[in-house]
């Protein structure tokens, strides 16, 4: 199916488009963001400042951005995707030179009114350009080595640059997100098997490189891996995050200690309680019930995205929706695994809930793209 085969006239126009937005998805996104506001209010000790209020403003702005993006026909975005990808690469190169140094990593460009993290943007533009690529590529050539190598390079180039910053969390998201788009597009499964094998080899290599001249990761990244493997070995040092986060989760029990009653977060035992570790506060104050509810909301978002993708007969739209949904999935899956002690602490926020500007805006832009694909789907 292609846009050539259906009448543009059947696509809603003007303000009528608002009626064709994927409203359940908007409700779900707002619910998740609402959980975030509540938790930010709680960790601030029952106060809208310093976190909840700016977060609400940002989300409102994000909603507006999402609707704006949704109003623009999806084919415009498709045609823009390669350009957007290249522009993001340029931005990534720029942060190498003029990015501010913060927390040992060069990650953002200060635009004055906000800090732009090109690596956040890259998560979306990469998915878009891959979707556009596979939309363009004839299915026969899908698994030919040359046509596989091209997107692989397109993924590895930004990943390598992000890893240099160094930002392990985003690199993992980029590589996995990109691979998922390739998988959905139908690249032969043998490639994935081969890459998985290679990855295992790489992990071994990374560990072998430790304390040698060609060490592949920074020392603090090695330490994070160490403490992930055995958090009890250093309960007050690097293992502190994981240990305290597990205590917070565990002490929540079935129904939690009640709103604003979590001792772990309120007494500051939790690090990064308003950003990466915000899930622990939720789990402590609302218990298993609260945690599973948020997970359920996330699952519904994924389900709605997959349904929207399956219902959309435009190949670019389907691929893009699934790619964005997968990236979104990776966000919360990595974050939750991290706070539950299933993955090393790599610094991935909980999407829409963690406090943070550029991550939320980029996500809202991405959902705007999904909405655009939904509105402008072939009928």
């Amino acid at each position: 199916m292609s846009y050539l085969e259906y009448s543009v006239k059947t696509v809603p126009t003007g303000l009528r488009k608002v009626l064709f937005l994927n409203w359940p998805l908007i409700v779900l996104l707002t619910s998740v963001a609402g959980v975030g506001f509540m938790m930010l209010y709680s960790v601030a000790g029952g106060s809208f400042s310093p976190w909840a209020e700016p977060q609400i403003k940002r989300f409102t702005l994000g909603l507006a951005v999402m609707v704006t993006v949704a109003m623009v026909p999806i084919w415009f975005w498709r045609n823009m995707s390669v350009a957007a990808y290249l522009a993001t690469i340029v931005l990534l190169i720029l942060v190498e030179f003029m990015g501010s140094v913060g927390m040992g990593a060069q990650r953002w460009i200060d635009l004055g009114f906000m800090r732009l993290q090109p690596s956040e943007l890259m998560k979306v533009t990469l998915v878009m350009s891959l979707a556009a690529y596979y939309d363009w590529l004839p299915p026969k050539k899908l698994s030919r080595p040359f046509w596989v190598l091209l997107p692989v390079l397109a993924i590895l180039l930004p990943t390598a640059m992000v890893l240099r910053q160094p930002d392990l969390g985003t690199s993992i998201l980029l590589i996995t997100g990109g691979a998922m788009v390739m998988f959905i597009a139908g690249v032969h499964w043998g490639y994935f098997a081969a890459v998985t094998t290679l990855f295992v080899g790489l992990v071994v290599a990374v560990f072998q490189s430790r304390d040698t001249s060609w060490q592949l990761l920074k020392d603090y990244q090695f330490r994070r891996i160490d403490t992930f493997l055995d958090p009890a070995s250093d309960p007050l040092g690097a293992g502190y995050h994981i240990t305290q986060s597990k205590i917070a989760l565990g002490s929540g029990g079935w129904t939690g200690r009640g709103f604003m009653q979590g001792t772990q977060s309120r007494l500051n035992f939790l690090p990064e309680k308003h950003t990466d570790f915000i899930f622990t506060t939720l789990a402590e104050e609302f218990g298993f019930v609260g945690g599973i509810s948020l997970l359920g909301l996330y699952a519904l978002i994924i389900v709605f995205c997959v349904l929207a993708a399956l219902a959309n007969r435009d190949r670019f739209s389907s691929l893009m929706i699934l790619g964005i949904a997968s990236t979104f999935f990776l966000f919360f899956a990595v974050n939750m695994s991290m706070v539950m002690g299933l993955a090393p602490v790599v610094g991935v926020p909980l999407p829409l809930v963690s406090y943070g500007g550029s991550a939320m805006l980029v996500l809202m832009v991405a959902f705007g793209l999904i909405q655009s694909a939904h509105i402008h789907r072939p009928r």
Partner: protein
Amino acid sequence: MRRPNADSSESQRLLSRRAMLLGGVQLGFMGMLALRMRYLQVEQSDQFRLLAEENRVNIRLLPPARGEIFDRNGVALARNEPSYRITIVQEDAGDVDKVIERLSTLVELDEDSLNRAMAEMKRSAPFLPVTVADHVSWEEMSRVSVNAPALPGVTPEVGLSRQYPLQGDFAHVVGYVGPVSDYDLSKIANPDPLLRIPRFQIGKVGVEAKREGGLRGSAGTKRVEVNSVGRIMRELDRQEGDQGQDLQLTLDQNLQSYVQARLEGESAAAIVMDCRNGDLLAINSAPTFDPNLFVTGISVADYKALTDNKFRPLAAKSVQGTYPPGSTFKMITALAALEEGVFSSEDTVWCPGHLEVSDRRFHCWKRAGHGHMDLQKALRESCDVYFYEVALEIGIDKISTMAARLGLGVRHDIPLSGVARGLNPTRTWKEQVRGQNWVPGDTVNASIGQGFVLASPLQLAVMTARLASGLQINPRMVKSSNGVEEPVPEPAPLGLNENHLRQIRKAMFAVSNNRRGTAYGSRIVPEEFKLAGKTGTSQVRNITAAERAAGVTRNKDLPWERRDHALFVNFAPFDTPEIAVAVVVEHGGGGSTAAAPIARDITLQALYKGDPPLEAYPSRDRRKIKAQQERLRALMPDPQDVRGGTRT
């Protein structure tokens, strides 16, 4: 608008299939996350809730009041005085410099402690109190309290501080406390958490250190809710600790203070003990120091003055110092000979003034010689040659065995720092330590307490008490702790022939009461209090042949460090011995002139339990003694003050 390739239904189906597969995998992963959440939050909930509680609740220590120390009559030797200090909490003070400036107009703040406080403030969290002035007076304290509104963050606090009301008199016995140091902590394998309290005071020397365990008590606890940086949010509950145990020593404050005054000006040591049960009544070392200086932190100048003093005020010479016992050792040689049966008290030795032993000439202190000497005369007049002969006859083994039985070369078990073992030389000791064979000359030297023999004043007092009682008296210094009497072991008999002991005592009586005795000048007049003693003058240098040829140099003409040590041991009363006394005057010259008068004065003071009447002294000494009594009374603490510290 370009639509380059028709979307074949085949690739559409592949996409759907893969999308479902990936979606399924993602949902599966979420299911796993849910299971993990269930595991942590439901199955392990109890364990983690406990951990969260431990996190939240912090246990704070409540330091116990240190046990106080009293003498045998309940006079306070070490007590806790309320002390006032001023603390500042940075975050309450706001502008710390300004507050301190205002504070300095009210209280005298010294530069050192102020700098230390500033450094501490930089290090510690802003909500923790930092001491800026310690040991401030009550007046300063009130001034600060009155002006509290102008001094935000400043809190006057009351604590307990150790105080030694008798100052130097008990410095070597009671010791002193001081803030716990890193060095102290490094010595303890598993330190009491109390010791981690900044500036917590622990015993450093003496009873304070040796009985630290009981005196310290155990900490109480208070449970508080804290946040992750340790700020106290609220108190949950508290449990009071156990106060430290009060100690009562066997020492007699009045006697101890008297002895300290009597030793004034000398570098000397004295021990008085009850020769019936071993209770130590006085343990003195002169000169002394004020232990209170150490509690607040002694200044560098004061400390240097103490360490530079050649009389070594910091040393507890009565238990730590070891000296050649000189002639006070002769009782041991004599007793060994009597017990061995080779000499009887009637056997005589000819003293020509010297004895040749393996081509070496050993002199008697009396160059002209004593003539015919039997045991009584030899001890009374302290003839050296008699004991040379006796010792060569019985050998060193018998002598050192006897010395050990009388407590020489034994570390007596009393709770003081550095109690000396002394040295009771034997053949094996010399072989092992010196790598040399024992030669007859060594025996000759040992027989009169010279050569290798070393004994502390405490050991000499124990020896005298054992001679006087015939029992294996062991010294005891702690009478009771927290009102519970410390056990007094029934002393076992020495197992010596009572007849032999009686002869030794008789000879000692003659030393002090026979006109020819070496300590006749220091006799006691009243029949019921007569003392029996023995002088000792121990060389600290070798007298060369050239010196001897030029005539023995008199002590007075020698530099202080090279003069002889003067010793005297005695027990009294002779008929029913109650006390044993040992006095050592470092480089004091002759035992009879330097040590015996002191021992006599101490004995009388102990037996009369206060200043004796002048009639107790020989008539020609009385004027001098009267002046001395007045002089010493001025040196002793006012009895009124002392009674103020008495426990009711």
